[in-house]
C-alpha cells in the first residue's frame, strides 16, 4: 500500500498553506529526512521532510497550489519493491485518522469541584504555654521540626554564623551544624532553585529570604519550578519546601525594602501562602508549613518579631493551614486582617467598642487557601465587612475577599465591603508620609463606621 504524504502543520497555528515548490519529482528516490517540498505557512516558507524511505510515486497537489488544508494528501510514496500500479486506488478510503479520542469534555470553562471549601479542624490547645517573642517561636518551630525529620534543613543568607539577619535562626547552627544550617552566598535565584531541586529529591528545605523583597530575584523558581511541577508532571513530583522571611512594611527603609507580597503569591495555584500574627500562629503555622508536602510561602513581619505572646510548648501542636482565627468576637462588623494588620484591627476594635460598635476581628492566618467558611459565617452574623492589608489595593487580598463576599454572602451584606489598604504608591521614606501610606487604627475605625453608616 503506498504511503500518503500529507500536508504538514509546520507551526503551532497553521491550518492551511501553500505548496510553494516540489524539490523532488515523480520517480525520485527519497530517504527519510530528505527535503521534498517547500511549504509556505502563515509565518514563513519551510521545507518539508520525508518521514519514510521510498520512491515518490505520484504528486497529488501541484506546485503553486494555495490554501491546502493541513492533512490533505499531497503525494504518494511507494515503499521498497512496490509496483507503480499500486498507486491507482491508493486514494480510496484509508485516510489516516487524526481526530483524537475525545473524552467527554465540556468546551467551556469547567468549574472547580464544589467539594471542601470547608476549613480544616483545629484542635483546641489546653496544654502548657510559655511567653516568648515571635522571633523565638519561629526558631523553636524550626528546631522542633529539624529534630523530628532529618530531611528538614535551613538555608539562606546569614542564617548560620551570623544567627540570622533578624536573629530568627539564633542557636540553630550550634545544635544542627553547618550541614543543615547553610549560609548561602547572596544568590537568591540560585539558592531558591537549589532548594526546589533538593525538594524534588525528597528533602524538605526551609529557604529563608533575608526579606521577601529579595524573593523577586527568585520568583521564577517559586512559581515556575516549585508551584507548577506537581501539575505539569501529572502528580509525579512535588516540591515540599518552605520559603520564609519578613514581608510587608518595615520601618523607614524606603520603597525597595518595604512591600507586601501576599497578593503576588496568593495568585498562584500550587502554592500555599501563610501570614502569621501572634507567636502561637508563628510556631504552629510554621510547623504545619514544614510538614506540608506542598510549597508554602511563609510571610513573617519584621515589626512583629519582638512582640511577645503565650505560645504552646507541646512539640506536636500545630495550627492547620487554611484555618482563620477569630481574635475578638463582635456582632456589628467583621474586620479581616493578616499579619501585623491584625494588631491594627484589634486596636481599631477597642476604640470602636468605646463608641458602641462591637467589631469581630478575624485573623486570616492563611491567605491561600482562604478560610472562606469562617469569613462567611462571621458576615452572616455581622452583615458588614472591612478588609485591612498593608499591600496595595489593586488586585489585593481585600479585592479577593470583596469578590468572595459577593459570591458567598451577598444576601447577608447590609453594606458594600469596605477596603483599607496601603496607599497606591511606592513606600515613601519620610516619617509622616510613611505613616500616611499605611493603614492606621483610625483609618480602620473610619472604614468600619462607614459600612455601619455611622458618623
Amino acid at each position, binding site marked *: 500500500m503506498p504511503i500518503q504524504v500529507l500536508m504538514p502543520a509546520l507551526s503551532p497555528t497553521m491550518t492551511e498553506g501553500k505548496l510553494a515548490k516540489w524539490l523532488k519529482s515523480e520517480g525520485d528516490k527519497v530517504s527519510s529526512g530528505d527535503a521534498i517540498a517547500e511549504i509556505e505557512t502563515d*509565518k514563513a516558507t519551510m521545507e518539508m521532510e520525508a518521514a519514510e524511505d521510498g520512491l515518490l510515486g505520484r504528486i497529488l497537489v501541484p506546485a503553486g497550489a494555495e490554501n491546502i488544508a493541513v492533512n490533505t494528501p499531497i503525494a504518494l510514496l511507494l515503499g521498497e519493491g512496490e509496483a507503480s500500479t499500486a498507486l491507482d486506488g491508493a486514494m480510496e478510503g484509508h485516510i489516516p485518522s487524526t481526530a483524537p479520542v475525545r*473524552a467527554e469534555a465540556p468546551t467551556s470553562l469547567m468549574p472547580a469541584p464544589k467539594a471542601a471549601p470547608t476549613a480544616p479542624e483545629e484542635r483546641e490547645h489546653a496544654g502548657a504555654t510559655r511567653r516568648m517573642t515571635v522571633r523565638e517561636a519561629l526558631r523553636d518551630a524550626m528546631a522542633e521540626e529539624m529534630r523530628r525529620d532529618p530531611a528538614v534543613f535551613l538555608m539562606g543568607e546569614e542564617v548560620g554564623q551570623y544567627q540570622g539577619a533578624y536573629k530568627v535562626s539564633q542557636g540553630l547552627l550550634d545544635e544542627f551544624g553547618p550541614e543543615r544550617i547553610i549560609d548561602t552566598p547572596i544568590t537568591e535565584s540560585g539558592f531558591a532553585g537549589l532548594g526546589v531541586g533538593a525538594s524534588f529529591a525528597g528533602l524538605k528545605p526551609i529557604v529563608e529570604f533575608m526579606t521577601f523583597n529579595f524573593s523577586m530575584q527568585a520568583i521564577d523558581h517559586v512559581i515556575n519550578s516549585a508551584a507548577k511541577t506537581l501539575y505539569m508532571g501529572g502528580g509525579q513530583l512535588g516540591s515540599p519546601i518552605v520559603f520564609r522571611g519578613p514581608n510587608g512594611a518595615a520601618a523607614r527603609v524606603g520603597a525597595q525594602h518595604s512591600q507586601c507580597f501576599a497578593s503576588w503569591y496568593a495568585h498562584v495555584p500550587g502554592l500555599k501562602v501563610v501570614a502569621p500574627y501572634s507567636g502561637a500562629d508563628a510556631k504552629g503555622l510554621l510547623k504545619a508549613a514544614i510538614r506540608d508536602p506542598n510549597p508554602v510561602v511563609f510571610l513573617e513581619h519584621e515589626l512583629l518579631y519582638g512582640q511577645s505572646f503565650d505560645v504552646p510548648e507541646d512539640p506536636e501542636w500545630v495550627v492547620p493551614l487554611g484555618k482563620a482565627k477569630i481574635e475578638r468576637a463582635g456582632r456589628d462588623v467583621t474586620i479581616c486582617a493578616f499579619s501585623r494588620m491584625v494588631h491594627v484591627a484589634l486596636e481599631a476594635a477597642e476604640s470602636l467598642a468605646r463608641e458602641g460598635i462591637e467589631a469581630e476581628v478575624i485573623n486570616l492566618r492563611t491567605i491561600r487557601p482562604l478560610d472562606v467558611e469562617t469569613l462567611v459565617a462571621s458576615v452572616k452574623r455581622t452583615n458588614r465587612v472591612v478588609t485591612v492589608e498593608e499591600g496595595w489595593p489593586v488586585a489585593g487580598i481585600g479585592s479577593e475577599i470583596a469578590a468572595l463576599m459577593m459570591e458567598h454572602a451577598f444576601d447577608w451584606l447590609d453594606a458594600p465591603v469596605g477596603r483599607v489598604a496601603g496607599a497606591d504608591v511606592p513606600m515613601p521614606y519620610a516619617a509622616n508620609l510613611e505613616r500616611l501610606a499605611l493603614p492606621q487604627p483610625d483609618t480602620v475605625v473610619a472604614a468600619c463606621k462607614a459600612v455601619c453608616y455611622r458618623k
Partner: protein
Amino acid sequence: MAIRPRRAKVDVASPSASPEALLGHYRDMLLIRRFEEKAGQLYGMGLIAGFCHLYIGQEAVVVGMQAAIGGGDSVITSYRDHGHMLACGMDPKGVMAELTGRAGGYSKGKGGSMHMFSREKNFYGGHGIVGAQVPLGTGLAFAHKYRKDGGVCLAYLGDGAVNQGQVYESFNMAALWKLPLIVIVENNKYGMGTSVERASASTELYRRGEAYGIPGRPVDGMDVLAVKAAGDEAVAHARSGKGPFVLEMKTYRYRGHSMSDPAKYRSKEEVSRMRSEHDPIDQLRRKLETEGIADEARFKDIDREVKAIVTEAAEFAQTSPEPDPAELWTDILLPA
C-alpha cells in the same frame, strides 16, 4: 599575569567499549532519531501541538553520558528533552502519548513536550525556563551529598542558556560546597536563531567554570565514544567528592529550534555538511562495520526493532484517550 585556563587532565586511554556496549549505543541513538522523526511527523499531522523541540543530530550526547552514570544518579534538562528521557529508559509510549496530550502520557497529558518527569528513572524534567534547570540540578546534587548516597547529577543546558545569571550562581554554590554536579553544555551552535558568536563574549564554553575553579573540557559531541570517555572522567571527579565539572559538547541540531523555525540563520550547506560528515549514528555504524562487529543483517534487525518500538509508541499516542476532564482539577496540591 595572564590567566591560565584550568583544563582538566584529559585521560585519553582509548575507550575500550565492548561490542555489546557499542551496539547498545547504536540502538539507543537510532531509537532517539526514529522517535524524533516520528514526533515531527505527528506534529505535521496536527496530533502534536505547541512547542516541540527535536533532538535530531545530538543523540550521541545523551547516549554517551547515560552510559557514564548509574541507576542512582539523577538527570535534569531543558525543554529539548525527548532524547534524555529515552536515554534514561523511560517508556517511549508514555513519552509519545504526552506529546499528543493523552491520558497515557507521563504527565497524564498535562505537561506536554517540555514537562515530563520520572521518579523511577531519576529524571527530573523537562524545564521550559532557559537556565532554570541548572540551580534545580544543583539542588539534586546537593541532595545526593546531603544524603551521602554517592550519586551525581547530570544537568544539561544549551549554549544559549549558558549566559543566564543563575547558571553562575549555581556554579559558585556547587564549587563552594563541592557538589557532585556535572554540567553538560550542549553547544549546538545556536540558541534559537542566535549563533554562539553573536551571543557569547567568550565562545569557549567549557571554560565558563574557571572563575569558580571548576574544571571543564571540550568534547566532540557527535562521537558517542568521546562523550562516554569525557563523561567517565567527569563522573569520577564529581563522585569522588572533588565537586562539579563542566563538559562542553560540540554538537548540532539538524532540525529547526522548534517546529515553526524556518532556520534562516544558517545555510543549507552547513546543515548538510554536518549531516554527511559528522552524523553520530553514521559514524558509529561505520566503526561497527569496519571492526566487524555488525553486518548488514544485524543493522536491519536493529532497524526493525527500533521501528517497531516507535510505531507502537505512535499508535499508543493516538489511541490513548484524552485526559478525563476531571483531571483539570487534580495534582495542584498534595493532601497535607
